[in-house]
């Protein structure tokens, strides 16, 4: 018996590697296909500047989608992230404008803390209503989506909330525009968030619990996992990710408007799914998600860089490309 085991174990390892390759690598191959398409459409596409622009732009969705990977792996869904981003941005700017602390650096740090606090609270609200009320996440987060959006509009008096202090704005702007070791700061933030997310999801017991809850809630319960707590926690993580995205977003235009974060929820979920995480839960792929967010942004970029389609039809082409990318990915996954 024991020798059978040794043999099969080594063989098993080779196979595992192959499996891993196919499912985890598929989104990256689809991304590569998009690169080829982009290069064909416009040679400027492959310029470092353009790619860095796109990568930087994808940071909001990427960071939010990292949070969504947690929520979705645990079998949940969060439609409120876009509105939540607007709300967190609005409150953060209002706080910064209040200038209640001396010293711009301190004030900024406090602003970031406020953002993260508000994000975590908003996430907790979602998580609590979903777990305690036992209501479908779809309905709860659709409701909070409306709530967060409207509170933002109300705070902005229908207009926009802009950072008043020019000095602070100038100090804050590099968080979006700055470059460190050749890479824009937002890219570093994606990398950091990705590493942290991957660490939590793959290496900690909490991450294991998330996957357990998403793959079979009963088993998780019978194994002594606090299902509700884990589930609520994923929404809090989502809220914190939204807040981090906001910290990258605000320095870009220095304002929150009523359109801030519009449709980000759909983009985030799409990034997660294109990245290989199943909507039914039980699987989570952080790096695939980031790759998915990047793909979405690239598709938009290619559309603007191309001259082929009428601006009216861009949506159609974009939709088609996403479906095809997903098809490519699925085909690659299946070929084991």
């Amino acid at each position, binding site marked *: 018996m024991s020798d059978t085991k040794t043999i099969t174990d080594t063989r098993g390892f080779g196979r595992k590697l192959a499996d891993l390759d196919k499912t985890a690598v598929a989104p990256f191959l689809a991304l590569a296909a998009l690169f080829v398409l982009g290069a064909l459409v416009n040679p*400027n596409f492959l310029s470092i500047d353009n790619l860095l622009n796109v990568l930087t732009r994808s940071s909001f969705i990427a960071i939010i989608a990292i949070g969504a990977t947690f929520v979705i792996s645990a079998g949940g869904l969060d439609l409120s992230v876009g509105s939540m981003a607007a709300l967190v941005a609005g409150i953060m700017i209002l706080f910064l404008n209040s200038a209640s602390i001396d010293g711009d650096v301190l004030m900024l740090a406090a602003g970031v803390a406020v953002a993260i606090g508000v994000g975590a609270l908003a996430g907790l609200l979602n998580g609590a209503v979903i777990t305690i009320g036992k209501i479908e996440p779809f309905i709860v987060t659709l409701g909070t989506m409306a709530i967060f959006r409207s509170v933002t509009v109300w705070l902005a008096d229908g*207009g926009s909330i802009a950072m008043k202090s020019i000095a602070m704005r100038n100090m804050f702007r590099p968080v979006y525009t700055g470059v460190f070791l050749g890479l824009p700061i937002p890219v570093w933030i994606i990398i950091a968030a990705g590493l942290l997310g991957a660490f939590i999801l793959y290496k900690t017991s909490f991450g294991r619990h998330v996957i357990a809850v998403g793959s079979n809630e009963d088993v998780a319960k019978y194994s002594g996992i606090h299902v509700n707590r884990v589930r609520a926690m994923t929404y809090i993580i989502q809220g914190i990710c939204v807040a981090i995205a906001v910290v990258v977003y605000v320095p870009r*235009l220095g304002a929150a408007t*009523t359109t801030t974060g*519009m449709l980000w929820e759909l983009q985030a979920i799409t990034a997660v799914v294109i990245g290989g995480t199943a909507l039914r839960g039980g699987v989570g792929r952080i790096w695939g998600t980031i790759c998915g967010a990047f793909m979405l942004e690239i598709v938009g970029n290619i559309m603007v860089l191309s001259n082929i389609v009428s601006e009216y039809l861009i949506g159609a082409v974009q939709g088609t490309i996403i479906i095809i990318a997903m098809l490519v990915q699925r085909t690659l996954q299946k070929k084991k």
Partner: protein
Amino acid sequence: QDKEVNIAVSIPAADHGWTGGVVYHAERAAKLLETAHPGLKITIKTSPDGASQANALEDLTTQGIDALVTLPHNSDELTDPLRQVKEKGVFVTVVDRALSDPTIQDLYVAGNNPELGRVAGEYLKNTLKTGDVVVIRGLPIVIDEERQKGFDDAIAGSGIKVLDKQFGNWSRDDAFKIMQDYLTKFPKIDAVWCQDDDMAVGVLEAISQAKRTDIKMVIGGAGMKDMIKRVADGDAMTPINVLYPPSMIATAMELTVANFYDQVPVRGKYILDATLVTKENAKEFYFPDSPF
């Protein structure tokens, strides 16, 4: 003066800067008018799209109103529902977007969309003479189409060449992205025309980030306070703006109220100019307290 009058105001929900301004001005005007006329009651309702606006019109008329001031989402869609309002004997004031059947509206306060495009186009034609321009449109709706047409007509046959047009969804963020991509795509751009000031904010940010110096100007439209301030400050990138004030809703409400309380019957068509705002006259149009 204590005549009882019920006026309903039906406008789009505050889903971007300009509509936010409309809601702001409507609520402000309502307060002022109600204090001026004790018998007057003004109900303001916002709707996110044409179909819900039709619903709101039904609901408002069921409650019994004397007059309706409305900025319709879409004139094609709302002509029939407004006709039904009219048939109940309600005084109908339409703002900004003319109905396909003009007999329905007692009063039409028109912002002039084609004019907004035309004024911007004329300015570019006269100052640049020749040059490459990129355009950022709003959402594919009628207003956008009218503005675009006005612009295209103005520059027709001149040396101004439109390199590209894309939809920025009235959003700063989307305009920022599109502008970044324009900058990648075109090595030389002389000017940018955005259909809305909200989007111009994003465009300016993208240009300043890319440190490109070839762009001579960004022309916005609608008269957002930040942009008016830039004009007033003499910012070279934003030499002008074209007015399209959300306060037109207040104008329409005032005129409608006048119809009931003043002796003169107010009927017909009031067309607001798409005024060209320059450094010289910018002060007149700068309202720091407005949210837009």
